[in-house]
């Protein structure tokens, strides 16, 4: 079980090491000014009058930003520093007045095609990275998002590391995503082979959405995304989050069913949609955060309910939920999201494996049970009480009245033949079952010398029943009955059907023997009938057995829908 968490532990370690690097610089506040003058790139330009905020920078107008950066440690030789920027717009980058790079065509956005990318890295000449204060100036235009001025992310490090770290991080995450993609396919195929198991489908979709989420989040490392398309990416991430945030509690609600499930799920879906659509101040991270939090809280509630009800697997899943909390506090949002999600998905995976194991066991049991029932059916004709008594009577008939003896043998042969025909079937036509009963009566008439009669009412020839269940009732009826005064015993089978159920009523008209002791033989007979009914109709049946003033009454009800 512990092994299942190993990948997670690795992942967490990776995150922790990634976050704990010491910085080689510190950054002062950025100031802005609308306009465009080449001198603004100079490190010694007086930017006293510049503002920390400017209004909208509409129609692709130019604006500049200036940021003072203190380099704490000069780079090692041959390892120049670089700077990584997360900035909206198309821009040129100046370092200490020197142009070190260009991202798109600032000022010409309205005329030219969009060019450049959201995340760009620029190498800084070594001679400009001595210890001390330096100036980063950006000449920029913001045609598509006039209010998104400013620097959203800035990172300075060895230029090679800047490039490599992101690729390494994203390659790890893609490996991770690949695992979920495979899981998604695997469980999809599992679902396709057994379409009743919606939990596997939900899990498959969750895994796929998670795969897509990782891709959408980390593709920025290698796919150049123009800033005008960035919102599209965020919307995709938000939608994926919405899906996952709904499916995970939905999945748990299937595994740990709770009262008023539909109502609560609908309310929850409403809450999620509200969060998704309201988009507080267009801060996508906040939306995602709120959805993740709602997902966590609702799922946690379900799992706690599962633990309370002592449902299988609930404790371990609860543990994964609890572990995901400290991860959420320790790591930055986008990382904790993935760590937390993957933990929860592992919990779901664990549950699914439990269910699959249960199903396999149930299936194996059903196979064993079917074999057992088949043997029991076969045994009916060779169990000594039937066979030896029959043979003894038969010998007597042959000795005393050979012609009748032959008829007796023929009846016996017919019953054996009928048993052979139905022996390996789970359901047989009712007509065959009735034929079995009639032959049995014929045999018993020779043995017991009682006038047995058989009546039917409303039999639907198209119906099927498990083999030998009526035959077993008949056997019980014969065993536990004494003939009426005219030396007769009558059996009657009545069939009724409506939209809710089909019902066989089996009546015995006889003097019933008082059942003084607990009766093991009848017990096994009824057990056989119950097992056969369960095999074919699961729990959708009812069997009653009771004395009446004319003898005995059995009813077998088979329901059309679940009870």
């Amino acid at each position, binding site marked *: 079980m512990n092994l299942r968490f190993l990948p997670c532990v690795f992942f967490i370690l990776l995150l922790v090491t990634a976050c704990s690097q010491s910085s080689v610089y510190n950054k002062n506040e950025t100031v802005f000014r609308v306009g465009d003058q080449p001198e603004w790139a100079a490190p010694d330009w007086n930017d006293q009058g510049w503002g920390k905020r400017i209004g909208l920078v509409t129609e692709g107008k130019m604006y500049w930003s200036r940021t003072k950066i203190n380099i704490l440690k000069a780079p090692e030789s041959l390892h120049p520093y670089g700077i990584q920027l997360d900035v909206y717009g198309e821009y040129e980058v100046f370092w200490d007045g020197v142009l070190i790079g260009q991202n798109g065509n600032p000022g010409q956005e309205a005329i030219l095609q969009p060019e450049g990318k959201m995340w760009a890295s620029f190498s800084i000449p070594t001679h400009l990275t001595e210890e001390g204060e330096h100036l980063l100036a950006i000449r920029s235009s913001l045609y598509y998002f006039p209010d998104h001025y400013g620097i959203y992310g800035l990172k300075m490090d060895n230029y090679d590391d800047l490039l490599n770290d992101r690729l390494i991080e994203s390659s790890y995450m893609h490996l991770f995503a690949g695992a979920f993609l495979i899981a998604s396919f695997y469980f999809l195929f599992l679902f396709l082979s057994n379409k009743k198991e919606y939990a596997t489908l939900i899990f498959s979709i969750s895994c796929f959405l998670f795969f897509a989420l990782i891709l959408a989040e980390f593709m920025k490392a290698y796919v150049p995304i123009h800033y005008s398309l960035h919102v599209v990416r965020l919307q995709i991430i938000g939608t994926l989050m919405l899906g996952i945030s709904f499916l995970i509690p939905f999945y748990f609600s299937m595994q740990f069913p709770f009262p008023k499930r539909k109502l609560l799920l609908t309310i929850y879906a409403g809450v999620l949609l509200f969060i998704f659509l309201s988009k507080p101040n267009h801060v996508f991270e906040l939306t995602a955060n709120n959805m993740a939090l709602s997902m966590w809280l609702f799922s946690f509630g379900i799992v706690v309910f599962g633990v309370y009800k002592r449902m299988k697997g609930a404790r371990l899943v609860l543990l994964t939920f609890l572990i995901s909390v400290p991860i959420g506090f320790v790591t930055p949002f986008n990382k904790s999201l993935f760590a937390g999600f993957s933990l929860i998905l592992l919990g779901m995976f664990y549950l699914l494996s439990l269910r699959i194991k249960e199903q396999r066991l149930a299936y194996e049991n059903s196979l064993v049970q079917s074999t057992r029932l088949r043997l029991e059916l076969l045994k009916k004709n060779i169990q000594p009480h039937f066979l030896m008594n029959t043979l*003894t009577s038969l010998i007597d008939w042959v000795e005393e009245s050979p012609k009748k003896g032959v008829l007796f043998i023929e009846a016996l042969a017919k019953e054996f033949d009928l048993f052979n025909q139905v022996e390996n079937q789970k359901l047989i036509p009712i007509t065959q079952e009735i034929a079995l009963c009639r032959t049995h009566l014929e045999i018993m008439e020779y*043995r017991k010398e009682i006038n047995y009669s058989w009546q039917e009412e409303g039999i639907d020839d198209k119906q099927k029943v498990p083999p030998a269940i009526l035959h077993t009732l008949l056997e019980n009826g014969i065993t536990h009955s004494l003939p009426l005064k005219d030396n007769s015993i009558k059996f009657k089978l009545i069939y009724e059907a409506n939209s809710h159920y089909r019902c066989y009523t089996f009546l015995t008209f006889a003097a019933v023997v008082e059942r003084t002791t607990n009766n093991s033989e009848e017990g096994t007979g009824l057990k056989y009938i119950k097992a056969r009914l369960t095999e074919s109709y699961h729990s959708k049946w009812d069997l009653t057995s009771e004395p009446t003033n004319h003898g005995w009454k059995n009813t077998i009800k088979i329901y059309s829908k679940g009870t």
Partner: protein
Amino acid sequence: MNILIVEDESRIAKRIERMTRDIFGDALQSLTHISTLPEALVFIEKNSLDLVLLDLNLNGADGFDLLTTVVSESFHTIVISANKDQAIAAFEYGVLDFVPKPFNRDRLEQAFNRVSTKEKTENNKIKLLAIKKRGRIQLIPIEDVLYIKGAGVYTELFLADGKKELHDKSLEKLEQLLSPTFERIHKSYLVKISEVNGVIVESGSKYMAELKNGILIPIGRTKYKDIKAKWI
């Protein structure tokens, strides 16, 4: 001979009846057929019988209930049953014979011979003796019985714990069932051989068997030679 047939299969009952009449001939005084358990119990209580032929599966009821009752009675019981696997248990309860179905006249006659010739079972299978005590049947393990004393038509069972119980069967019938574990050392005594410590010769050529617990039981003069040959 007064015989009761307890059998719920009419054809088989007729067969037994026919053969029994044939075998016993004039020696048969009465022959009754009953097909249910309660009726059989009532009949046994009210009538004096010499032999009961019993089927163990009556209308699905457990025949061992009836069996414990009949074996506690004074008459012998022969079980005629389809279930051979009940044979061992039946012998443990002390039936004289077990005739498996299907049977023929020879097999039935062989069983009847045991009754009329007082042939010993020699099977050593009996484990229990059923006694009637305060209207209930109590089963006494054979291993608890030390010796048995004839008392008219009844017998007295002397047990290892010093208690004494009455049994309805005669000493002859018990001898038939309990041989060879028990030996008839006197016309009134049946002793478990494994309990005998030795033989004491008293004055007047009286022979006594000494049991492990010190009890002395007389040995019949006529039996002494046989016993001496067997034991010494």
